[in-house]
């Protein structure tokens, strides 16, 4: 039981971490692009 829960929990943590990193990188690039265009 513990292993199965751990597998799904770890997969969830990896995806949340990755999607948050994508969001942060997109926000940084959007800011960079708006500064370049000014």
């Amino acid at each position, binding site marked *: 039981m513990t292993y199965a829960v751990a597998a799904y929990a770890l997969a969830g943590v990896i995806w949340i971490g990755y999607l948050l990193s994508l969001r942060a990188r*997109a926000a940084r690039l959007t800011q960079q692009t708006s500064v370049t265009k000014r």
Partner: protein
Amino acid sequence: MSGEGWAAKIRAISWALAALLVAGSLWMAAHAPLEVQMGIVQKIIYIHVPSATAAITAFFVTFMASIVYLVSGRNWRWDAIAVSSCEVGMVFSAIVLVTGPLWARSAWNTWWTWEPRLTSFLIMWILYGGYFLIRSSVGSGSRRDVSAVLGVILFVSVIITYMSVTWWRGSLHPKSVTMVPEMRGVLSISIIAWLVFYAAAFQERFRLETLRHAAESGEDAR
């Protein structure tokens, strides 16, 4: 509606569909019949196998996009598709490598063993990690060309990983699995759900690449 407007709409629909399918597949996995010998640990298969399928699909997309980039006038968009798919494939592969040992501990009484499928998969993951390492270390002038060549060459490691259970003896991974229809149904739906999730994550990563292109070139990436 502008190109970016349409892209945002398609992204939102993809995420909604992916969330619905993944939630449905998790619910189905929770209610799938219990395997007699392994019990509840067997349910790891419903995330392990779909993640491996999505990883292989992602690397195949990288392979195809790299070829198209090299033969069709080096359009930056094909490079963006290749690198975006590769990164999402790396995440799926990481999940395979994390969930695999949890299965192995219960099924084989060990966290890790150097059997053909595990070893070749780990090597494949490290090699694709090298793709990003090399991509970030070469100059911007040749970055896309080098990445495309790597995207083609590295796919050999995917083929080796896929065929490892056939080519080498002593694999603990079976060539084929016999399952009751209910389990097979849940596994098939889980594979479809995570492939849709791959498509949504890929679009999100591709958007990042278009933003990067706009920031670097100063032109509108659309």
